[in-house]
């Protein structure tokens, strides 16, 4: 982390809205979400389950479900809008590490063949080059016996090995950006640490940008330069990780951090639940659960206010103190 001005972003999500058609009506999964990832930096996206993290990532990767609508917004990668213009798509330049390594590879084909197929499509060079490069990548992600790994089927790897395999796959076409969707939640704690250390090392060695989606503040603190907190499909707060974690301003972030077992004296949690995406409250989406909500919170969505230090907060009342019991 340094204080130099941020260079022009590698990835910029601009006022993105994504809606899903469901049986219960239109689900507004993402609403006016903006986010930037500068070159060489690691950006975290954090929020509860159902806040739109996965949809955001799928939009960036171009794998939104068939029922999705994008009424507004743009996703710029290396200056081009990859959402609007298929020809400008970032294929091969964005790597992806999925959350669940189990069904990310087709069980009936050899893992190596599946990755080589992607490389044939996106990476220059001959088959022989690709093979050599993949073996080298397997070595870089510390897969045991890289040459034999090429011939194995996905089920022949353990969970941690499969995640390493997928990291190698994400790096196979020399991406500029790697998007990781909670890549450690399916793994046990010791393996989690190894995978995180591996990601950090690879990102530093290769000058990669990382967009890291998680709900684990520990992971966030260890890995990310800056963080964006999502709540119910909107940005609640964003800024440099240290600043946000040390002095959260949005009531949601404050309550969320107060729930962390390391900080909370007892496990109280935030009263209420995340609203259903088909029935979002008017105005600020957090106001029904917010301890400092005022009458005007229900009127209009709060604008994202810029604060010094590169932070922004979607709460006009962020200076108010939370009532005592909420932060007990």
């Amino acid at each position, binding site marked *: 982390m340094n204080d130099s001005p941020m260079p022009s972003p590698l990835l910029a999500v601009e006022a993105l809205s994504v809606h899903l058609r469901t049986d219960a009506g239109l689900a507004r999964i993402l609403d006016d979400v903006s986010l930037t990832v500068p070159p060489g930096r690691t950006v975290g996206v954090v929020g509860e389950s159902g806040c739109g993290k996965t949809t955001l990532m799928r939009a960036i990767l*171009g794998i939104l479900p068939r029922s999705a609508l994008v009424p507004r917004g743009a996703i710029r990668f290396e200056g081009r809008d990859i959402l609007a213009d298929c020809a400008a798509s970032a294929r091969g330049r964005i790597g992806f590490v999925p959350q669940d390594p189990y069904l990310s*590879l087709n069980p009936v084909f050899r893992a190596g063949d599946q990755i080589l197929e992607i490389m044939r499509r996106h990476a220059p060079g001959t088959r022989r080059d690709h093979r050599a490069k993949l073996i080298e990548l397997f070595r870089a992600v510390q897969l045991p016996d890289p040459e034999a790994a090429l011939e194995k089927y996905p089920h022949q790897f353990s969970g941690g090995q499969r995640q390493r395999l997928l990291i190698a796959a994400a790096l196979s076409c020399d991406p500029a950006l790697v998007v990781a969707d909670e890549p450690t939640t399916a793994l046990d704690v010791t393996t989690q640490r190894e995978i995180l250390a591996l990601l950090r090392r690879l990102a530093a060695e290769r000058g990669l940008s990382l967009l890291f989606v998680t709900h684990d503040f520990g992971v966030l603190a260890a890995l990310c330069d800056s963080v964006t907190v999502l709540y119910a499909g909107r940005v609640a707060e964003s800024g440099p990780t240290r600043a946000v974690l040390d002095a959260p301003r949005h009531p949601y972030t404050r309550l969320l951090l107060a729930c962390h077992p390391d900080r909370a004296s007892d496990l109280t949690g935030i009263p209420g639940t995340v609203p259903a995406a088909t029935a979002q409250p008017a105005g600020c989406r957090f106001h029904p659960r917010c301890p400092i909500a005022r009458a005007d919170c229900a009127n209009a969505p709060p604008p994202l206010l810029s604060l010094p230090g590169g932070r922004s907060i979607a709460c006009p009342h962020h200076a108010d103190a939370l009532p005592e019991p909420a932060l007990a």
Partner: protein
Amino acid sequence: MSAALARLLRDPVSALGLGIVLFAVVVAFFAPYLAPYPEDAYESHLLQRLRPPSAEFPFGTDNLGRDILSRVILGTRNALVVAVSVVVAAMAIGIPVGLVAGWRDNWVSDVLMRLTDVFLAVPQLILALALGQLMRPGIETAMVALALTYWPFFARTVFAETRRLRGALFVDALAGIGARPTRILLLHVLPNALPAVLVRATIGMGFTILTAAILGFLGVGAAPPSPDWGLAVAEARQHLPEAWWFPTFPGLAILLLVLGFNLLGDGLRDAADPRLRRSRR
């Protein structure tokens, strides 16, 4: 695949099943050359009726004086042709239905799966008897009835696998790079269901042979003078218990071939499923 075959052969019971099935296929293929009296499929020799097994007629002769060994050998081809046709026809209906129903998540899926349930609820023999009454009783009618009642098993198997994989990331990724649903389903999803389909098909062969024999016995399957095993058992009823050899050998042929297919099916289930490869030894 060769590893799966090796594992299959290591299990003596499965190897026996494979051996029986291969033997039947060879017999069926060369039936006219193997049978001592190939013309006995349709000719009768009334002077040598119901002779007990002897050197001349190892399995004896039937009520029309035909060599039972020849007719058992010639009947193998009928049994296998019926089994393969019925199972292939059932797969041709069931697999596309399962793929489409598993892929779509709307009324199409509901309609297809309820239709599958309806066909699953129809008893095979009753439908075959009814069709036999409506149409001309015969082996073709029986085959139509068997195929119509067997395809739901394939539809259900393929449906379950397609549903499981529809949300898998590799499927989303394929859609993301512009693969059409037909390509995703046939090249990427179907191979996952293939081991289960293969096992179903193998067991289905044995099942079909048995049911076809029952239909022949009831008189709505193969018609005389076809050398059908089930038909032979039915014709033998009037000559029991004196001509014990008449129903015994065709009956044993049915037993052996059905057993072979069932053992092979069980062995395939253990050997061919890639998800079981590591856990089984």
